């Protein structure tokens, strides 16, 4: 019987597979990395306030994944060593959606790193019984070491849910210092100088475009353009109008916003200025924001506006420094006196009030953690913690960001799209900005669309 023979072979195969399965169950996949040097010699005296947490564990859920997750995991080492607690880290690209699935199903993580205050508000609204107020120890750290504004970002209706964690400065224009010095270009200090410089670049180099840009980012396509809009809002309308706009006290399509978007359009929607080495204006919509800066290295464009974290996007071995291959200058204000700075950041939100969770949240707000994190990360991370040791920041762009962020003269504003309700800030605003680029709808019409989509109270 041929079929019988086949079935026996199939059986043998299944058996073989089963053995593999068993072997797989037996083999443990333990790959705990050796602790970084910086974390091994830590003074445990600072940790006595947290008490003995031996055998306790805290789960952390974040949107930060490999390779940026390892510095985070390493930064917990002093806490784990000194208190005896273990921290279980989990990162996912689908964090925003999955966090709400877990909350809904009833198995939330102990602590989540949430990059959007708007999402904290949504969660506080939907799961008021699960979300925890920031622990007292962490609150006093935040009051001591952070600008008051950070407490406001993490609060919903006066209740403080999200303690600040990392930060990044967004008002930067990436450029090539070598290309600038070869051509004799100066770094602009006002918006007008920036436009003059751009025109000069066009005149000097008829073959290449001065700016490059890209707003493609998978399902989040459009967000880099929202940063443009916010940066221009801060410059043309000022911080007060910006606050009103974010809080929806003025309509989303207020004339001031239209002006700001048109200001961004002066560069982004000008075929003479964009899109260096990548195509015309439409190509901005299809270029990944991560790839948008590469033409700077190839000499196909001179400038690209993107946050400080873009330093991680450059291919390995790129010299990121003031006189190196690439660096960033501060996107200037309308005058030299004004220096508005658009920032982003993450917040830690706790979903459990066990002592170890509270202690862990407090640890993350302490200067000790910021110091350790700066060391485990190397280049590419800052915090707004004024107690941290700024000398630990090795990358010049991080130093520049930190100095701007903690400078009294800087008018710091949080990324508006992250503060708005998620339906707008992570939804219609993104699609509207994409439509604004390609097919190129007018500023008025796309802003009116967003205004219409604002959730009613």
């Amino acid at each position, binding site marked *: *019987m041929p*079929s*019988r023979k*086949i*079935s026996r072979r*199939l059986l043998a195969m*299944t058996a073989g*597979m*089963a053995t*593999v*399965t068993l072997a*797989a*169950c037996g*083999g443990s*996949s333990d*790959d705990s990395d050796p602790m970084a040097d910086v974390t091994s010699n830590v003074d445990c005296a600072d940790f006595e306030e947290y008490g003995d947490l031996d055998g306790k564990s805290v789960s952390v859920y974040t*949107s*930060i*994944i*490999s*390779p*940026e*997750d*390892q510095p985070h995991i390493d930064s917990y080492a002093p806490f784990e060593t000194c208190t005896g607690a273990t921290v*279980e880290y*989990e*990162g*996912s*690209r*689908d964090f925003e959606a*999955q966090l709400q*699935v*877990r909350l*809904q*199903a*009833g*198995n939330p993580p102990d602590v989540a790193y949430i990059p959007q205050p708007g999402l904290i508000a949504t969660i506080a609204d939907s799961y008021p019984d699960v979300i925890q107020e920031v622990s007292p120890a962490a609150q006093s750290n935040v009051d001591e070491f952070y600008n008051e504004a950070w407490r406001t970002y993490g609060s919903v209706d006066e209740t403080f849910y999200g303690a600040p964690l990392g930060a990044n400065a967004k008002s930067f224009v990436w450029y090539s210092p070598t290309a600038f010095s070869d051509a004799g270009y100066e770094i602009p200090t006002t918006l007008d100088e920036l436009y003059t410089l751009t025109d000069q670049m066009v005149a000097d180099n008829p073959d290449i475009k001065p700016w490059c840009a890209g707003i493609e*980012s*998978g399902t989040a396509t459009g967000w880099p353009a929202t940063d443009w809009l916010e940066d221009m809002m801060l410059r043309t309308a000022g911080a007060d109008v910006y606050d009103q706009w974010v809080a929806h006290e003025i309509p989303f399509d207020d004339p001031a916003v239209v002006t700001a978007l048109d200001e961004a359009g002066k560069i982004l929607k000008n075929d003479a200025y964009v899109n260096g080495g990548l195509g015309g204006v439409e190509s901005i919509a299809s270029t*990944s924001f*991560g*790839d948008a800066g*590469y033409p700077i290295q*190839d000499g196909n464009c001179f400038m690209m506006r993107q946050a400080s*974290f873009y330093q*991680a*996007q450059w*291919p*390995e071995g790129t010299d990121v420094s003031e006189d190196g291959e690439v660096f960033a200058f501060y996107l200037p204000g309308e005058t030299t006196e004004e220096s508005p700075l658009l920032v982003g950041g993450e917040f830690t939100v706790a979903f459990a009030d066990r002592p170890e969770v509270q202690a862990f949240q407090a640890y993350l707000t302490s200067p000790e953690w910021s110091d350790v994190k700066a060391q485990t990360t190397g280049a590419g991370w800052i915090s707004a913690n004024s107690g941290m040791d700024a000398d630990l920041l090795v990358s010049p762009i991080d130093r520049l960001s930190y100095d701007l962020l903690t400078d009294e003269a800087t008018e710091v504003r949080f990324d508006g799209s992250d503060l708005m309700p998620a339906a707008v800030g992570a939804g219609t605003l993104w699609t509207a900005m994409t439509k604004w680029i390609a097919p190129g709808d007018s500023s008025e019409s796309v802003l009116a669309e967003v205004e219409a989509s604002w959730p009613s109270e």
Partner: protein
Amino acid sequence: MSETSTSKPTSALADADAVAGPSEMRKLSRKEQRSIDAKTRLTSPWASGFALVLAILWSVPTFGLFVTSFRPERAIKTEGWWTFFTAPEVSLENYDAVLNGNTDFAGAFLNTVVITIPAVVIPITLALLAAYAFAWMDFKGRNFLFVAVFALQVVPIQIALIPLLTQYVNFGIDSSLWVLWLSHSIFALPLAIFLLHNFMMDIPRSLIEAARVDGAGHVKIFFQVLLPLLVPAIASFAIFQFLWVWNDLLIALTFASTDLQPLTLKIGNLAGSRGSEWQLLSAGAFIAMIVPLAVFLGLQRFFVRGLLAGGVKG
């Protein structure tokens, strides 16, 4: 009985027109006729040319992915894979970064295997028993139940995800492998029962009756008469289910706890928080493809036979 008919297809064909043989005889000869028709139709040079063009069109993206996976990061990010042929630059850095990087790819590979095999075996085992009952056992409400099972296929699995996870959390099993095995089984069963039931109905009633006359019970009929005949059907469904579970992202994303994450999740996360490392995706995808490819090539004989067996139902 089935052996004689399969071993002598030509005589069965000849008989079919002359003598009105037993019903299964006619059916088999019709099947033969059809395959002969198909053969003549498909061997025309036009059809072959068309199939060839389709095959190339279908394979080009995969081929592009394959070429991309061996190119250095800078080349991937600045120009298309087709430029490889004018300026070939080969590098294993992507594979090295995927296999030896921060991501525990070997562990994820084992997780995928450990998730997939029971998630294939459990639904097939249950579906075989259920299909047998629906096909060959008379009980009250059989038709109603069968229609109910059939109707379950219409329910999109997405609406069940959160309620199911809530249940798992209540039962306290939400960090075990069982949630993955159970979920995959639950979602696979309606289609599995339906398909296997149809295959079983294809088996001539007289065969079962003959076995019954010889004194065989349900157990004996199931194991000694039906099971050998069902091997192609089981294998083809097993391939389907295997590929589905192996490539599943949604269920793993919803249910898998941190230490049980399969390959698909790890690959999804390879690109990094801000998508800066996407050059690794092609290499990751190829590593994940090896096993399904081997399974498909190894079992494709069953696959085609299983599909044909389902095709002549009626």
